[in-house]
């Protein structure tokens, strides 16, 4: 675990009075594509209408109510229960409201989301927050690979929004991100910020190898250890970036514990990747 810890984001009293609770009827090994589980779809629908929303169980089109027990109606606050590791695309394209996943969740969580908030109390699968354009995803456990990344073949990924992972994240965090903020309190795998166009990735644990490969602009901050940096990043100076103070203090406002040593501390600045535009930066905390 890294240098920033989290005091807890969600409090029970913050939950809205009116909620829709979905409980997966039984665990499955067959993937479920459930992009219909979205606050925008639930806000004005009765329970019957919610149960009738389509989902794909493998290749079979089914009704949501056949796979999930539904409680509540007409609310943009959703609570999900059960073993959801095979449930994909939850909160895809959402623009409002809140989804709380009480456990683990599958791939593509909150992809393309534009607003609202998703809180995962367990782990999330690959591609969480892919192409996100606003809102906030908060994962209390670990995230898979390609957190906040662009889908293959796309030129640009995340464009605004915030992703926070309290645990570790896999490879290619924030690949091709254009704007926004990704905070990982644990370690990240290789190629964080690969081909990044802009935005900010802050890693409180260990920063994996080849960070920022091919990045044009943007910022990758490492508060702790890091694997060997690419030779295509050049050291520039050791300084106290004022903008980073602003960022770290916002993290404190969101409930994270950030030590004064990081807020007031010095950082080594490297620019790169010089095989691309070279205007990206790695800021490495320097505790000397």
């Amino acid at each position, binding site marked *: 675990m890294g240098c920033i810890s989290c005091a807890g984001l969600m409090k029970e009293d913050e939950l809205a009075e009116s909620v829709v609770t979905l409980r997966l009827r039984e665990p499955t090994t067959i993937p479920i594509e459930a992009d219909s589980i979205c606050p925008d779809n639930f806000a004005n629908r009765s329970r019957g209408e919610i149960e009738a929303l389509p989902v794909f169980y493998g290749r079979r089109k089914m009704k949501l109510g056949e796979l999930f027990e539904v409680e509540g109606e007409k609310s943009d606050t959703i609570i999900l229960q059960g073993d959801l590791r095979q449930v994909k695309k939850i909160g895809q394209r959402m623009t409002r409201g809140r989804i709380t996943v009480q456990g683990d969740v599958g791939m593509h969580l909150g992809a393309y989301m534009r607003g609202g908030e998703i809180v995962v109390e367990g782990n999330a699968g690959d591609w969480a927050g892919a192409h996100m354009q606003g809102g906030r995803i908060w994962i209390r456990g670990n995230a898979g690979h390609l957190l906040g990344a662009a889908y293959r073949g796309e030129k640009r990924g995340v464009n605004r929004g915030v992703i926070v992972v309290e645990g570790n994240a896999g490879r290619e965090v924030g690949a091709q991100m254009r704007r926004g903020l990704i905070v990982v309190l644990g370690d990240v795998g290789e190629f964080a910020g690969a081909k990044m166009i802009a935005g900010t990735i802050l890693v409180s644990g260990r920063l994996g190898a080849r960070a920022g490969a091919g990045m044009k*602009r943007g*910022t990758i901050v490492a508060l702790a250890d890091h694997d060997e940096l690419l030779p295509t990043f050049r050291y520039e100076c050791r*300084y106290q*970036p*004022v*903008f980073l*103070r*602003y960022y770290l203090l*916002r993290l404190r406002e969101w409930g994270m514990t950030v030590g004064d040593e990081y*807020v007031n501390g010095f950082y080594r600045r490297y620019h790169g990747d010089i095989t691309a535009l070279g205007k990206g930066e790695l800021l490495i905390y320097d505790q000397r």
Partner: protein
Amino acid sequence: MYINGVEIEDTFAEAFKMRAARLIITAANEKWALTAAQVATGFATSVIACGAEAGIEGTISANETPDGRPGVSILVFTMGPKAMEDQLMRRVGQCIMTCPTTACFNGLESEEKLKIGGSLRYFGDGFQISKLIGGRRFWRIPVMESEFLVEESFGIKKAIGGGNFLILGESQQATLEAAERAVEAMREVRGVVMPFPGGIVRSGSKTTSRYKFLRASTNTAYCPTIRRQTESALPEGVNSVLEIVIDGLNEWAIREAMRVGIRAACRPGVVRISAGNYGGTLGQYQFHLREVVG
């Protein structure tokens, strides 16, 4: 009406609509935040010749500023948005960016915004970096010392300029002491600045002149040295007059500043408290002294 034996004249201060911006300047320590604030609000006593009226609203402790460093809040007033943009560009660019360790944040939430950091960024010669967080965009401009952080846009809002009162005293010393006490009390009120030197004006003006090339001239009715040569407004025993001008974000702030200022100024050696107006023909706001002091 008398307060501590000082007459409160039955008259009013006339004030007019302006636009205001609030800048939060932070720095490595209070000394440099204050230095930047003092320079940025320099030569900003009157819009007539300075283009803006500005002053320090107050200091802000490190745990209340956006970047957790000591800060100073300044207010800038102009007659319109265009003049404000010009003034902020000059003052932020020449006075704040140049000052060691500073950063500059918007301190006024408003729908109406002016792009300031977004224009100053070009000083970075292509090496400037944009950062967007929580809906606020900042520019990091590389400078020789390290980096200047400035917010892209600054909110402006309709405000009020020209609130005032006059302190008519028996002597220069007594009048100055009263004015100093008044300004000290008024600085506790948020949302106002007193843009003149030390918050005090000794050379109040009227809006006419015998010279065609001049828009304003000395306020002859309140000049003790020529009281027998002009239509004087000075009662017997008055030998010195000082004015305090107040610009504020809203009517309430100006009223409150005038109230505490007038009350603080009512002390031995002061004969009368009056106010400057143009018969109600110029400004949209009138602050009646007796009503203000309650």
